[in-house]
């Protein structure tokens, strides 16, 4: 009786070990093998449509980002602003320089009429 009981005990232990082993190693195998049989094979058209929807969603997002980037690039940046201010100051500075030179050094024809150049008139007479 005890011998038989011991044999049963060992048999139970072996069974448990086998079950554990099967659980650790064997289970994924059958599960993987079973899944295509459990579900009906997907409709290729539906799969394509799903992929298309996902792709076009992504594409739309990228288009949006591209448009935002383009709008961002067409907006003038700091560089252009300072370039323009520099142009304005430079052009008006050049104009003021030319004007001041013209005022300081009148052309020879008008030297006699210029009241600001008395020494030139004295030197000639």
């Amino acid at each position, binding site marked *: 009786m005890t011998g038989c009981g011991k044999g049963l005990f060992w048999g139970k232990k072996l069974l448990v070990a086998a079950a554990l082993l099967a659980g650790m190693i064997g289970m994924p195998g059958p599960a993987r093998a079973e899944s295509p049989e459990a579900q009906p094979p997907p409709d290729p058209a539906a799969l394509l449509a799903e992929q298309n929807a996902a792709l076009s969603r992504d594409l739309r997002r990228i288009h949006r980002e591209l448009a935002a980037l383009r709008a961002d690039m*067409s907006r*003038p940046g700091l560089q252009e602003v300072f370039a*323009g201010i520099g*142009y*304005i100051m430079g052009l*008006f500075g050049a*104009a*003021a320089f030319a*004007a001041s030179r013209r*005022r300081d050094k009148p052309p020879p024809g008008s030297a006699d009429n210029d009241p600001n150049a008395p020494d030139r008139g004295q030197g000639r007479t």
Partner: protein
Amino acid sequence: MHISDGVLPISITVGSYAASAALAAWSVRRTRSEELPKVAVVTAAFFVASLIHVPFGPTSVHLLIPGLAGALLGPSAFLAIGLGLLLQSILFQFGGLTALGANALMMGVPALACGVFFQKLKGRSRRRQSLVGGLAGALGTALAALILALLLASGGEDFFGVAKIALAAHIPVILIEGAVSAFTVAFLVRVKPELLAPAFVQGRPRQPELNAPPPEPPDSPAHG
């Protein structure tokens, strides 16, 4: 408010180029060399003002200060605005180079009109000057919208329809511009009143304010 390339017919483009070249030449001749720094500063302000976007409801509007430029510069305003628009179209791609003449007319003629308006009506008191300055600022934008409609009408659009749309779209700009101009003129009246006296008649002596003594120390020169 900029006209783009290819919107206007060729004849209008060429005609507006000729008209704005003539006006610019007149403006250059009327600009005195002592005023060049002032013109440069106002030009730079005009150039940059179009970048200041004011959020307004769903959209955002940007300043265009033809009225203020006219009030400050008088006849030189056309030069300032033409140069500012040229640089804007080169650097910012605002408007096109071929439409530059039309754009200069659209902004420059209101500036000259506002200059005359401001000089005629500014009176002597500070409050009246800032009020008239604000009116000039508002009037400048409204006139620019009307000229825009006129120019677009030459391209086959319906004048009244375009004018209505342009004015309606610029009502916020007109209001903001009036406020900005009134504030600026009020500030300038207090700190530098001689800036507000551009000589439309050449050789007219510039009078300092009689009943509004400048708050500067007495040793500073009267004319900057």
